[in-house]
């Protein structure tokens, strides 16, 4: 029997859908399993063969909650991510505005140079940064993390804002200038409202990158300024001992940013590709 074109198409459609579902399950499975493990007892967590059905317990979460360390680390993550993002945005907006609307001879080169600082391997400047932080008594403080994270994200934010500001028609600015607006008023009342989407997507991207940054946050912090990445890293030493608690901590550490990412995915793509891919 000959399978009709229509049937063929339907089979193809169903196979594709099935393949997508299987892939989604595979990719999401580790996260699912981690969340599942966070509701197990330590014994169930390392039970072999692994258990899928069990009486869920909230014990891990309450232990981690009682442990004031978690709150402190979470707070550090929030403060450093938001702080670094705010700092970088505040520095970048005026610069990007000026470069986009009043480009000089070297503007393109300056932007390229800024991006090239991202190519500098962090480990190459580990010792100087570490020693500078030590000499200025800023080791293990949120201030030094905020500054470093801001500098790491500044080039990306500059590029993004530059690309967004470029899309604002110059005529609008000229009109506002005719009305006698000063430069600061122009930024405040004309550029900012128009580029709000771009600034938001730059900020979202920066927050995700800061939240998950795991070089400086691990190496420059200890008890005081440790972020969630550092907290999770500190669990790596006693092999598997606290797997259920570690899962609970990880779930709490990742949930905010994963949910955040779900809502912001479109903006993040624009951010990551400097709007080059639309």
């Amino acid at each position: 029997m000959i399978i009709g074109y229509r049937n063929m198409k339907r089979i193809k459609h169903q196979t594709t859908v099935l393949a997508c579902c299987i892939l989604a399950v595979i990719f999401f499975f580790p996260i699912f399993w981690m969340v599942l493990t966070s509701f197990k007892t330590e014994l169930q967590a390392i039970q072999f063969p692994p258990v899928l059905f069990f009486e869920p317990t909230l014990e891990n979460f309450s232990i981690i909650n009682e442990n004031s360390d978690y709150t402190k680390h979470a707070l550090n993550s929030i403060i450093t991510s938001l702080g670094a993002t705010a700092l970088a945005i505040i520095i970048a907006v005026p610069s990007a505005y000026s470069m986009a609307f009043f480009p000089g001879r070297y503007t393109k080169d300056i932007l390229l140079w800024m991006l090239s600082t991202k190519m500098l391997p962090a480990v190459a400047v580990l010792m100087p940064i570490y020693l500078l932080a030590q000499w200025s008594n800023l080791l293990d403080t949120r201030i030094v993390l905020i500054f470093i994270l801001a500098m790491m994200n500044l080039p990306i934010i500059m590029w993004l804002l530059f690309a967004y500001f470029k899309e604002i028609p110059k005529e609008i600015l000229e009109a506002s200038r005719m009305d006698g607006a000063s430069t600061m008023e122009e930024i405040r009342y004309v550029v900012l409202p128009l580029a709000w989407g771009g600034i938001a997507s730059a900020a979202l991207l920066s927050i995700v990158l800061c939240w998950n940054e795991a070089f400086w946050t691990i190496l420059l912090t200890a008890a005081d300024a440790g972020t969630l990445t550092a907290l999770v890293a500190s669990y790596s030493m006693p092999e598997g001992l606290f797997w259920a608690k570690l899962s609970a901590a990880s779930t709490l550490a990742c949930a905010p940013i994963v949910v955040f990412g779900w809502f912001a995915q479109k903006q993040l793509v624009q951010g990551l590709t400097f709007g080059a891919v639309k």
Partner: protein
Amino acid sequence: MKINIHKILQAPSIILLLLWMIVPLGMTLYFSFQRYHLLYPERSGFAGLSNYDFFLTDPALGVSVLNTLTLVGGVIVISVILGLGISLLLQEAFRGRGIIRILLISPFFIMPTVNALMWKNMFMNPAYGLFAYISEIFGLPVVNWLAELPLLSIIIMLSWQWTPFALLIFMTSLQSMDQEQIEAAEIEGAGFWAKFRYLTLPHLGRAIGVVVMIQAIFHLGVFAEIYVTTGGGPGHDSTNTTWLIFKQALLAFDVGVASAGGVFAIIVANIIAFFLIKTVAKGMGK
């Protein structure tokens, strides 16, 4: 007058980034020619090229460079191929596609430390990991992943995290593809491969370039995954250049040698960046 105001507006970002780059870089360069050991502060002074000599003759160096390249290359190849394949599958419209997409991109937002610990405990642990369980079901020998195949293990972890990234970018790029062009090609009788080769791939050229470049920047400095799992071992099997330098600096306390390594890392990163930008620029030139 106008010009001055723009100098003032641009100054903070340029000056801060310049300081952020020049000061540590200068210090690294300076330290690399100094005897500077945190445990023996009395040994100081000009060291000539001895730090470089020590770092460059370290037998672990060749291994670590090779590991770095394997790591970067492996993850990029896997994530681009998987990302391409999945993004093409997701072109098909069906109910619930939004949820499927959200599930697929979630790994990208997981912290590197969580990612690595999760794989280490959940899958790769030889005693209670799921891989061990699966091996047992099929009667295969249990593999102690992190001890026997440390580099591959880390490549798997990173690919799991970064395939969603490639996917996210490719999906976005595919949305802007000219549907009429595709339909025209179909009417002309173009099969899947012809459409892929002559329409999809050229359209994605720029997106692929972006994915490769961003991943190269991130993977050259892979740190957290190694830090919480293998610690660069066993031996030097999963040591990349970042880890090698880190070990000199914070575990061996030798700032001089670590700085020489840092200068080396900068040179390597620049060489790779140079070739990357050249290739990517070629790819985007179409």
